[in-house]
């Protein structure tokens, strides 16, 4: 992969001038340490990912799903990574890079709280002070992660602007960075933001597909017909796709949050989904030109998804480009189908996925014929953080899976 600034017409560096020198410094550090392994950076990174993070994560053949969908379903188990999601691959890489760069402080935004906890863990591990910005709405729906960040010694700063989700948290973190840029590194949580972030985060996350590609050859004796991953910003997505991009016969399926509907409300500025790749159009947000959920004037819409980690109006520029090129196929799965898939995976395979991840399985359920004979699905994270949300959201619905919510109520009353 040699793209580091632009991906076709997407990408770039649309940030306040005050940040540009830091971005140049980061670009330089990225090229030296990450791309050229200067001072053995990548070796140390890989070693820490192994010993602290628990890599490699397994590729598991899913007995029940394979039978149910009559296709060989392999699960890439990023839920087993330390912290419970793929997010650590990136967070650890960036915090370590900040250390190599001589930075003294870490800031990050978080949506589901997974990137925040991953960053807080990595910062504790590498002994760096750390502050996390998180929207108030997300704080409320992902409380366990707030506690975890705090237990790891990170400050958590609630962001109350707008709807209080990921978009606002990113803006606020950029503001902090504009003030503290000389000593602080901003650990962005997905393949978004100004260059070199999208390329750098992709490179840190590519370990997913690097391992998966080797593992599927071992397990299935061949490359898969498809790779499926959910897409919020798209870091687990590009991490899962990267090493397969050159394998023209492998379909790459990016599953976004269909939310409650694909129809936008221009009047209110609300898109009740986060299906940026399928429904968004080109614009500039958070430092990059990419596909966005925006109104006809270019104002950014409030997005929605039952899963906080997909609830974002933008998407990584590289993914936008690969969709335009036809290399990546965008898809989306709505809240109901994601919840059903959550319960299904929990009951059938004994894996409680993150609500974000559940979207990938919702896609499989709705399109079993689209994935070919052998598919790799990235289990981007585990669902411990989502228990309360799932209980609440399930109670409000009449789902197509057999979930006995009375047992939860009984437990509540105990």
């Amino acid at each position, binding site marked *: 992969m040699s793209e580091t600034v632009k991906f076709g017409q997407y990408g*770039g*560096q*649309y*940030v*306040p*001038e*005050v*940040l*540009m*020198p*830091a971005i*140049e410094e980061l670009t330089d550090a990225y090229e030296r340490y990450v791309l050229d392994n200067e001072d053995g950076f990548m070796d140390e990174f890989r070693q820490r990912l192994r010993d602290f993070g628990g890599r490699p994560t397994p590729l598991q053949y899913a007995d029940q799903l394979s039978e149910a969908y009559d296709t060989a379903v392999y699960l890439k188990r990023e839920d087993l990574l330390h912290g419970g999601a793929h997010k650590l691959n990136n967070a650890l890489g960036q915090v370590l890079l900040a250390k190599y760069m001589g930075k003294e402080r870490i800031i990050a935004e978080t949506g589901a709280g997974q990137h925040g906890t991953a960053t807080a863990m990595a910062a504790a591990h590498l002994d760096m002070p750390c502050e996390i910005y998180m929207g108030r709405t997300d704080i409320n729906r992902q409380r366990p992660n707030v506690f975890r960040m705090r237990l790891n010694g990170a400050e958590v700063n609630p962001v109350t*602007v*707008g709807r209080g989700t990921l*978009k606002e948290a990113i*803006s606020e973190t*950029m*503001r902090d960075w*504009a*003030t*503290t*840029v*000389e000593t602080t590194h901003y650990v962005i949580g997905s393949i978004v933001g100004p260059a070199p972030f999208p390329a750098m985060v992709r490179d840190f996350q590519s370990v997913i597909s690097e391992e998966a590609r080797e593992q599927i050859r071992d397990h299935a004796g061949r490359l898969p017909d498809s790779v499926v991953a959910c897409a919020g910003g798209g870091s687990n997505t590009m991490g899962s796709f990267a090493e397969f991009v050159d394998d023209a016969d492998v379909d790459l399926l990016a599953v976004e949050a269909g939310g409650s509907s694909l129809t936008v409300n221009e009047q209110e*500025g609300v898109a009740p989904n986060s299906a940026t790749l399928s429904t968004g159009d080109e*614009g*500039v*947000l*958070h*430092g990059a030109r990419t596909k*966005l959920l*925006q109104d*006809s*004037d*270019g*104002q*950014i819409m409030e997005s929605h998804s039952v899963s906080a980690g997909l609830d974002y109006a933008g998407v990584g520029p590289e993914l936008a480009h690969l969709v335009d090129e036809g290399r990546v196929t965008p898809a989306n799965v709505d809240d109901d189908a994601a919840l059903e898939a959550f319960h299904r995976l929990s009951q059938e395979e004994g894996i409680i996925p993150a609500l974000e991840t559940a979207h990938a399985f919702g896609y499989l359920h709705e399109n079993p014929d689209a994935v070919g004979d052998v598919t790799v699905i990235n289990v981007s994270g585990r669902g411990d953080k989502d228990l309360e949300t799932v209980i609440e959201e399930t109670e409000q619905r009449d789902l197509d899976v057999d979930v006995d919510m009375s047992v939860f109520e009984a437990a509540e009353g105990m």
Partner: protein
Amino acid sequence: MANNPDLAGAFERDDPAFVPYLAAGDPDYEASLEYVEALARGGADVIELGLPFSEPIAEGKTIQDAIVRALDAGMTPDRYFEFVAELDVDVPLVCMTYYNLIYQYGQEEGPRPFVEKAADVGITGFVVPDLPAEEADPLREACDEFDLDLVFIVAPTTRGDRLDRMREQVSGYVYVQARLGTTGARDDVSDQTDESLARIDDWDVPKAVGFGIKEGDHAARIVRAGADGIIVGSALVDIVAEGYENDEPVSAVADRLEAKARDLKEGALRGAQQRAESVVPEDQ
């Protein structure tokens, strides 16, 4: 590159420019018209008129709130152009907004339709905080075509190559960011201002300093340090916000804005006088 005589001409060595900022449409269209006009009456030499964008990453809390008020009251790019056309002021107007609004406007791709329309309603130049020199070519070209200026921001962190790149592109004036961070009124004056001004001492565009200026004395201090103008936003938006929260009559708020403008403009003039009286600024 364009160099609109109106804009650069507003900055004179012995009459430094007072450049106030307000978000257009804050807290509503009608009141906002009055407020902007009050600033002109108070002595504004150039007005930076914000077109509100939903993700103002370079703004501090004060201006973020102004933007939310304006958006809630229905401000859009088209309304903004009407607003500009309707304004009864005779100083140059600079449009301050984020790139996505410029980029999305009109049927055609790219910034040209927006710039054309802006020129048409009487805008003189642009400040686009999320558009560094690296990404500015398309907008620069459109500005040249319609003879508008493109102002760039020099930050305390801007050095070396970056300065050169910006120097080539900038026109109208250069916006010297007085400190790290986002917009917002402060009580102190940053040393970084002096250093930034020193770094661009030999540039031939006027140098206007902004970010954090709150009072006439600050303005004086900055002009003394060599600025050709001062840019003041949050301190003025604070007055609008206060009036909005207390439900004050528009005219009362407008009066306070005018008075504040006068104080700032006088501060700037005082600074210029002091500078003229001593070759070495007294407190260096």
